[in-house]
């Protein structure tokens, strides 16, 4: 019988799905002629969320024609979500930027210019700013979606070349509190374990995360674990009932911002019922308060006295009972392995670092750490917030390889690796994100490079910062693949870049795993990879500033073709010279090693031989982590070598419940929280251009609890005005038993000026991590009309 192409593809699709289950189908060998299909498969990572799913892009005649999962991958075991499946449509999208655009004034219209003109203008403006206003008048604002090679090269040119630490990125808005939590609790950034714990965990504690929509493939793994093992308990703690809550055995719904009381109360119960692990505490733990003063166990215990389950239940708003808190604490402490997972619900808070500390406390107290199935795992939002920004030097206070800027010896190591004079890197950290955009408002930043992100939409209280971004005081370059609200409002110069799979580079996902994506198709004519753009720009800068040190920064990369050789050389310099010997040692993870793997390498991975095994599944465990051996200080099985804890201990922190910056009052009686929806990604510049995703959720709406809706006369679809002390939105109501009574919730993706919720959110920051409190502010709502026909809006 003749097999049609349709039959062939259907059988291929069935075989792919069956292979995941080890299931044999009666047609294992699809027709040979068709099997010799001319589709070439290129392995890489998904472009979207921080899960780091591995997939292969099928390319035929230069076009992306197919996608398939990589079943051997330890991140996703081959599964992909629907959001991840559509990104191929962005590759030949008609709205892709393909030519540099320039306008001298932001009120002017853009004009097409040549690449030569564009690079000259960019170099001229940055050189001019440095000459006239000093090194700190320039700034870089990058992204957790940029490749590690890109972030690394940008920061090298800014720090080593232009001598400023004004190097920041949007992970400050999402992950900075997780960094602060890991540093202060464990002495080193990033999780001890990873996804492998999911299949071993007996208790999941999911707090401040709607992973069903934000991390769908991780959610799938959790669900599979629960289905296969009915004894597994899933606890979901969140003020909003979400798709994630539907698999929860226990859902704790509390008033926003009261979860510190919950976490302290769980610790109270654990100690009261003697469920803590005294031996683990004796061996490995120190107790701290305030800025790091040492206390003892008794003082820590005393600090919990105000958090009896009864008191905590009251603080939390009364929907959670004291017995539920007790039950949850018992399950957390006594399961064979407890895995906590959280994301922005804890991080985007004025008390973000404290909230992270309090989750870590529970793991340290109970010893639910360092063993199979137990970990305190912060999920990353973006695909390369960990790899590029946290590890590659993309924040104002961190140099590549987790090196703090303020330590002279660390700066000197970097200077030596770069071959630039000692003292070239400034001694003080640069401006963190919110300070950087405040400095734009004040006209202090004269030239700024914004790469692969849209702060006009993504900054909290954005009206305030957009005033400065719109002014001509700051010359702004944007590198991106599509127009965004930032290119429209703030940019003088827009440079079109290559997209994922149109260039080569590494992403590092949530679980310390670095994974390579090689170029598989050509970018649209006119678009270039960022590494080429930065190298060319630095060349011109060196001439205009007559500075041989800038030339030195790019000397190792001179003349290399930008599609593979250039990013490879950048990765080699970074991994071999700047991660060697650090806790994020990627020396063994060369391009050759990464290309040979289905997934990638979890650091530390000091040798290629070791990296080929996949690297370190659990940090700090002797026998599993090579650095636990080389840095051991005694014979104990766990060795905490993190540089931030000279005592080599884990630290339990006494941290009180503390309110968010704004809590509802008579004028603004509701809590407002914001988050993601499954179909969209961030500012929708990508997903809003994919018809299937746009149609699924064309515009944002405000979720209102049915009791509040009845009280205010709001019906489904009614137009509702949401006002805070900072701004106003109008969007349709979704009356829904999601947010707790007294709280409303909106998605933050919508670009329409009426529905851009960051006009309403709050820009108070965590004093430690400098991460803003996107998740909680006070607002009022009122119905302004019945349902109205709305149009989606993409700039």
């Amino acid at each position: 019988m003749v097999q049609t192409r349709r039959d062939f593809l259907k059988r291929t699709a069935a075989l792919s799905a069956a292979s995941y289950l080890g299931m044999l189908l009666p047609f294992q060998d699809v027709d040979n002629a068709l099997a010799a299909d001319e589709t070439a498969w290129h392995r890489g990572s998904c472009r979207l969320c921080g899960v780091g799913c591995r997939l292969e892009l099928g390319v035929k005649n230069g076009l992306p024609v197919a996608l398939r999962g990589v079943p051997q991958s330890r991140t996703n075991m081959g599964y992909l979500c629907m959001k991840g499946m559509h990104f191929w449509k962005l590759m030949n999208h008609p709205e892709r930027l393909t030519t540099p655009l320039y306008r001298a004034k932001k009120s002017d219209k853009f004009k097409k210019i040549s690449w030569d003109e564009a690079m000259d203008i960019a170099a001229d403006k940055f050189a001019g700013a440095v000459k006239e206003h000093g090194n700190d008048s320039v700034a870089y604002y990058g992204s957790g979606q940029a490749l590690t090679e890109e972030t690394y090269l940008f920061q090298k040119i800014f720090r080593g070349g232009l001598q400023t630490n004004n190097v920041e990125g949007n992970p400050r808005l999402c992950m900075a509190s997780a960094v602060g939590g890991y540093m202060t609790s464990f002495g080193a950034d990033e999780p001890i374990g990873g996804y492998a714990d999911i299949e071993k965990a007996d208790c999941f504690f999911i707090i401040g995360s709607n992973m069903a929509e934000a991390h769908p493939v991780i959610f799938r793994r959790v669900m599979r674990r629960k289905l296969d093992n009915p004894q597994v308990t899933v606890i979901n703690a969140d003020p909003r009932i979400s798709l994630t809550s539907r698999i929860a055995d226990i859902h704790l719904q509390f008033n926003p911002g009261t979860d510190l009381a919950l976490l302290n109360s769980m610790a109270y119960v654990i100690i009261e019922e003697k469920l803590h692990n005294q031996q683990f505490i004796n061996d490995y733990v120190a107790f701290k308060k305030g800025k790091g003063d040492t206390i003892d166990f008794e003082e820590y215990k005393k600090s919990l006295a105000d958090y009896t389950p009864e008191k905590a239940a009251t603080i939390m708003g009364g929907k959670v009972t004291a017995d539920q808190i007790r039950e949850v604490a018992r399950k957390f402490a006594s399961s064979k392995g407890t895995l906590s997972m959280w994301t922005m619900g804890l991080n985007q808070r004025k008390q973000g670092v404290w909230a992270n500390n309090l989750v870590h406390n529970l793991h340290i107290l109970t010893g639910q750490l360092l063993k199979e199935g137990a970990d305190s795992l912060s999920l990353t939002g973006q695909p390369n917030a960990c790899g590029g920004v946290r590890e590659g030097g993309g924040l104002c206070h961190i140099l590549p390889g987790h090196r703090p800027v303020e330590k002279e010896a660390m700066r000197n190591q970097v200077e030596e690796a770069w071959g630039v004079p000692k003292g070239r890197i400034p001694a003080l950290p640069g401006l963190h994100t919110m300070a950087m955009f405040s400095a734009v408002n004040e006209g202090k930043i004269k030239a700024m490079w914004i790469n692969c992100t849209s702060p006009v939409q993504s900054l909290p209280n954005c009206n305030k910062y957009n005033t400065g971004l719109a002014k001509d005081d700051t010359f702004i370059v944007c590198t991106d693949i599509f127009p965004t609200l930032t290119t429209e409002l703030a940019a003088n110069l827009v440079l079109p870049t290559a997209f994922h799979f149109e260039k080569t580079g590494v992403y590092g996902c949530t679980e310390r795993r670095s994974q390579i994506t090689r170029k598989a198709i050509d970018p649209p004519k006119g678009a270039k990879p960022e590494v080429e753009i930065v190298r060319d720009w630095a060349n011109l800068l060196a001439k205009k500033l007559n500075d041989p040190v800038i030339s030195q920064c790019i000397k190792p990369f001179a003349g290399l073709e930008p599609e593979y050789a250039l990013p490879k050389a950048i990765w080699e310099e970074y991994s071999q010279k700047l991660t060697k010997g650090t806790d994020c040692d990627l020396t063994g993870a060369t391009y050759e090693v990464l290309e040979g793997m289905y997934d990638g390498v979890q650091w530390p991975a000091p040798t290629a031989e070791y990296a080929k095994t996949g690297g370190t599944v659990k940090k700090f465990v002797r026998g599993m982590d090579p650095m636990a051996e080389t840095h051991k200080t005694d014979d104990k099985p766990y060795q905490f070598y993190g540089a931030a804890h000279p005592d080599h201990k884990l630290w339990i922190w006494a941290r009180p419940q503390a309110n968010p910056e704004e809590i509802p009052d008579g004028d603004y009686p509701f809590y407002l929280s914001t988050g993601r929806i499954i179909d969209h990604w961030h500012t929708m510049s990508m997903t809003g251009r994919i018809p299937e995703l746009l149609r699924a959720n064309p515009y944002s709406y405000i979720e209102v609890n049915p009791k509040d809706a009845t009280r205010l006369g709001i019906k489904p679809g009614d137009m509702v005005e949401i006002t805070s002390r900072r701004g106003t939105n109008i969007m349709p109501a979704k009356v829904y038993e999601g947010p707790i009574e007294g709280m409303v919730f909106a998605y933050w993706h919508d670009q329409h000026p009426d529905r851009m919720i960051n006009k309403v959110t709050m820009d108070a920051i965590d004093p430690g991590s400098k991460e803003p409190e996107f998740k909680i502010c006070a607002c009022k709502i009122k119905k302004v009309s019945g349902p109205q026909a709305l149009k989606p809006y993409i700039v």
Partner: protein
Amino acid sequence: MVIAGFVVQCQPQSQQDTVVALEALGQVEVFGADEKGNIVTVVDAESSADLEKIVKKMEGIEQVLNVGLTYLNVEDEAKKIASGDLSPNPFPRKKHWEKLN
């Protein structure tokens, strides 16, 4: 033509009902299932938009817990987009700079 392979996950005890419900959607073919509630499913859709609609319906089946994509072929659609016969753009517009000038 857009062809996609999925592992659809449901509660093991509702596997038979789920298979019936999936096949009732049309354009959905079930190739097998295991005792854990994993169902090997192939969708033969007209377009990505059609596929998205079918997947939403699959996700809407009460017993379905997760729809996990394993394979996707869009070669017809990719060719049409490349030749300009189909726009992947929700609201087709001119090139950005043309719009601005």
